[in-house]
């Protein structure tokens, strides 16, 4: 076997192994300013992290009724990993007029 060919073969194995690793998880940032989630609508996939950046002096939550509930203290950044696929609507328990939506695709 030519040395060059051997290298390609090894590379093939490595790339093949990498192919079986799921796509890299992403971090999606959602800003909270003056009681607004921005962007309000996001698309993500299972395993991605949502990072809420709370610019307000008020505590907020990102809550999905009957499912998850994330506390977001004032002037803090809070992360949450999406575990389930599906479209979810979330809101703030303290200020239910604050709403957001995440379309979570499977891995």
């Amino acid at each position, binding site marked *: 076997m030519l040395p060059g060919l051997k290298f390609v073969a090894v590379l093939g194995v490595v790339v093949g192994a990498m192919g079986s690793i799921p796509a890299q998880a992403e971090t999606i940032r959602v800003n909270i300013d003056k009681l607004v989630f921005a962007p309000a609508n996001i698309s993500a996939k299972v395993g991605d992290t949502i990072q809420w950046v709370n610019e307000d002096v008020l505590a907020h939550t990102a809550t999905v009724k009957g499912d998850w509930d994330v506390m977001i203290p004032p002037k803090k950044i809070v992360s949450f990993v999406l575990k389930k696929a599906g479209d979810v609507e979330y809101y703030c328990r303290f200020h*239910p007029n604050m709403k957001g939506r995440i379309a979570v695709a499977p891995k």
Partner: protein
Amino acid sequence: MFARLSTAVAVICLLGTPSFAQGAKPTDPQIAHIAYTAGVIDVTAAKQAIKKSKNKAVVSFAKDMVRDHEAVNKQALALVKKLKVTPEDNDTSRTLTKQAAAKQAELAKLKGAAYDKAYAANEVAYHKAVIGALETQLIPASSNAELKGLLETGVKIFQGHLEHAEHVAAELK
């Protein structure tokens, strides 16, 4: 102007609902005082609820009110200091405080579920009244852009609290 304001206040007092005087155009120092007073009133009512109520949803709502209004009023004080505006006491602030004290005395006489319902109902009415006053009087009358901005955020906070209060009131039925 002040005669008209007093008449409006008198009418509102007779109606017995928390409300704001119509017809007077307050100045920025007066607006700052009114907005701050509106927050203090809700904190006082919430502290009474925390002491009196045994209902989990009511107590947790009341704690949210204390936390939010104290945070906003702290921000409001920082803003007036920066703008070198001294909040100025006025008839609307005085009437609001008087009405709130009367309401608190009335609520103090109630117990248990009757208190919870009355507190939640008053929170709904109070937040509606404040939103109305902010939108129709205080925001249009304010001349400083930063003060106006804080009042506009105030509307969103009060709207959030109103929805929250409505949920609590509905749960108590």
